């Protein structure tokens, strides 16, 4: 237990690594407020303890019953905190405006698509990837939209957070300072798998980043590989698990399903084949599976996936084998 307080896992007791240009200012203000709080808290508690011992009710002691009045003190303890609160507000405002002002020219623009419960990042060369890669030392601007509900883009190491609101674009930017891998969390509750809507942020050197972009643009040739590639990028992965362990997500797992009969919510069965997969992608509610009546509805992919992409996904699902088809808990 104790090591939690001294562990080396963090750069400091309070914070993860300062990996963006904002981090230093945010941490400075945090420390400043912390010391101000201690400055108030310690005397308050000390006075409380001292008074309750010194003036405690005991035989032979009788304190005053008259309320004390001291206008000077009362004015002082109203006015001083007001000024301090004003200073904290001002510092917070300055730091906030730093984050809100337009980023330095020549940003790396990256489109962020949040969709339950996946992140998808679209890079300037058209590449798509479920992890975020940014070049070190260069301001990166996130142009974010949500395809379903509220999400929030949060990278603790950068000290930034911005909600992603369906129906509009929200923006945020940051300038990473240290190469490395950092956590990216969704920090606005978005349903069943909110807790797993995480990704990694890779802050790469200029060369490494260029190499990543060149690599990421290449779609796999092999149909099954291509299906898997799409599965990871088109937000299938967040609900439909494809692991061999038979884990069940919010939607039916793929593993071992191919060719088996599927019980339907309305009764009856249907064969898990090309037709069923294709129909379920384009019109998910047409043949809802039994046991998933209360699951969050899957959005239709009509117009978002091309015919050959659906074929690739079918090939991928078909390739998943498992001795025992997973059963819902």
């Amino acid at each position, binding site marked *: 237990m104790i090591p939690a307080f001294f562990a080396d896992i963090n750069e400091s007791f309070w914070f993860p690594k300062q990996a963006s240009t904002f981090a230093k200012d945010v941490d400075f203000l945090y420390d400043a407020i912390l010391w101000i709080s201690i400055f108030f808290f310690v005397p308050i508690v000390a006075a409380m303890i001292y008074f309750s011992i010194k*003036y405690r009710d005991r035989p032979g002691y009788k304190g005053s019953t008259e309320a004390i009045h001291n206008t000077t003190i009362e004015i002082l303890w109203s006015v001083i905190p007001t000024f301090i609160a004003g200073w904290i507000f001002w510092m917070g405002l300055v730091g906030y405006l730093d984050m809100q002002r337009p980023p330095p020219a020549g940003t790396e623009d990256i489109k962020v698509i949040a969709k339950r419960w996946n992140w998808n990042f679209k890079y300037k060369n058209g590449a798509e990837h479920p992890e975020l890669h940014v070049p070190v030392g260069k301001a990166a601007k996130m142009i974010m939209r949500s395809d379903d509900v509220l999400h929030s883009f949060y990278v603790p190491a950068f000290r930034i957070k911005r909600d992603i609101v369906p129906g509009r674009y929200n923006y945020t930017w940051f300038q990473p300072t240290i190469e490395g891998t950092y956590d990216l969390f969704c920090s606005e509750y*978005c349903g069943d798998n909110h807790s797993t809507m995480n990704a990694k942020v890779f802050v790469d050197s200029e060369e490494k980043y260029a190499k990543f972009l060149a690599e990421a643009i290449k779609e796999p040739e092999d149909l099954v590989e291509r299906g898997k590639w799409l599965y990871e990028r088109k937000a299938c992965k967040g609900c439909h698990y494809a692991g061999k362990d038979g884990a069940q997500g919010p939607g039916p797992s793929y593993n071992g399903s191919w060719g088996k009969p599927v019980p339907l919510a309305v009764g009856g069965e249907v064969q898990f084949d090309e037709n069923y997969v294709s129909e379920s992608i384009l019109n998910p509610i047409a043949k809802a599976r039994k046991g998933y009546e209360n699951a969050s509805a899957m959005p239709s992919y009509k117009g978002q996936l091309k015919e050959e992409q659906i074929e690739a996904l079918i090939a991928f699902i078909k390739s998943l084998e498992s001795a025992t088809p997973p059963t819902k808990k």
Partner: protein
Amino acid sequence: MSVVTKPVTMPAPNLVAGEEDNYLTHSSGFLSWALTLDHKRIGLMYLTCVMASFALGGILALLVRIHLWNPNLDPTQALFSNKVYNQIFTLHGAVMVFLFIIPSIPAALGNFLLPIMLGSKDVAFPRLNLGSFYLWVAGALFFLFSMFATGLDTGWTFYTPYSIESQGPVVAATMGVFVLGFSSIFTGLNFIVTINTMRPPGMTWFRMPLFLWAIYSTAIIQVLATPVLGITMLLLAAERILGIGIFDAKMNGDPVAFQHFFWFYSHPAVYIMILPAMGIISELMSVHSHKGILGYRMIAYSSIAIALFGFLVWGHHMFTSGMADVTTIVFSALTFTVSIPSAIKVFNWIGTMYQGTVSLNTPMVYALAFIFLFTIGGLTGLFLGALSTDMHLHATYFVVAHFHYVMMGGTLVAFLGGLFHWWPKMTGKMFNDFAGIVSAAIVFVGFNLTFLPQFVLGTRGMPRRYASYALEFQDLHRLSTIGAVMLGTGLLVAALTLLHSLFYGSKAPRNPWGGATLEWECSSPPPHDNFSSAPTVGDPYDFSNIEYDPKVGGYFKKK
């Protein structure tokens, strides 16, 4: 309301004659309780119900903490599935907010005490009061049934658009909240009218006990803010059923508009929760220090100030939502204005002890614990009110810890302090003071152990409402879970202490603590009509003529 017409100079009240009769034994039978118009019985029924709700919410909280003992990175090994975890934290939040904290102090203690502190027979509208109670029961049953039957998983905040498409019983739950809201409005209305029209002769506004100032400020918020919650819930239901397109982006609605609507009520509701607690602490600090309260007027004014400023700060729940910069900045500035009246109150409470005679009994120990915890809760608000630090801390465990310090360390601890303080008055029984102090100590240590690690989790970047977490957070989560079990134990000790007193407690004197407000002038428990004749109104914080009488084990006012 005939009390109002009584002349100022009443003869000294002769209460001894009414000593045998009390409101508990005045009449008997189920209907004498179910159809009672007596504010004391209604208060007691509220107390039973909110405590049951609190027990339910507490068990849910423990389930959350036990689930988080492990990181749950492999969902098949977790205690609950993600969906069930989401339902549990939703239920915990909703039960605690709507069924416990909001009605706890005003409806239970407020109902019992308000008329007695005013020296009157009952509230202005006793039937409306009973009606509020049944609305509460109906709303609570509706709410609980809907949630348990199918599992609400939207979080207690019902954020759109998730609440529009969630498969959970959102419409039923919103209707439950709607009905509960009316219970709250009627109670608030009743209290406002009672305080405005039924103060006894001689009790000017500034001779009112500070608890009543707090209840009055709270009632104003209840009446003005709760209708907005009602409207919001109706709009949400309309959006789900009819698809009117105000919150749903698919129909050109704006999900952030819902947040504005929701927090326009729910932020003032934070003050519905904390203001009565502050009122209790003002009473407790002065009575148990046997000393007039420092800065009576400042405390009274700051209650009103908090109630009014509380309406102007809802936007600080949405700093990261992408509101316009100017809006965000204005909300941040207004947020800091609320911190000042709260700070002043803390200084006044501490100053009240200075040169007094401090009795360290159970209510006082709870009051001191309140000051410690509430101060942490208030100070950590500064980190969240400042914009740049909030960008990092928003929606992390830091926020969870902050509001639990205010809501639980603040309101709940004050509620317990008040409950112990007025327990002899309500039941006529004295509890075991040592056991009470032990409960306060366990609650205090357990509480800090639960929530201090959560501040660190937050600054290290752990988002809230997560069913699983990275391995590096495990130690702090485990500390928190150990604290939660300890906290639960402390609360159990407190409950057992009170229950024990019902059966084995000695008879409570009229004024066991040496209070100067009117409720200490009637017998314990009070007679059906509270006072056989209207009591004389004095300064509620004048302790100079209150003397201890070892024969009865209580205090009396020297004539």
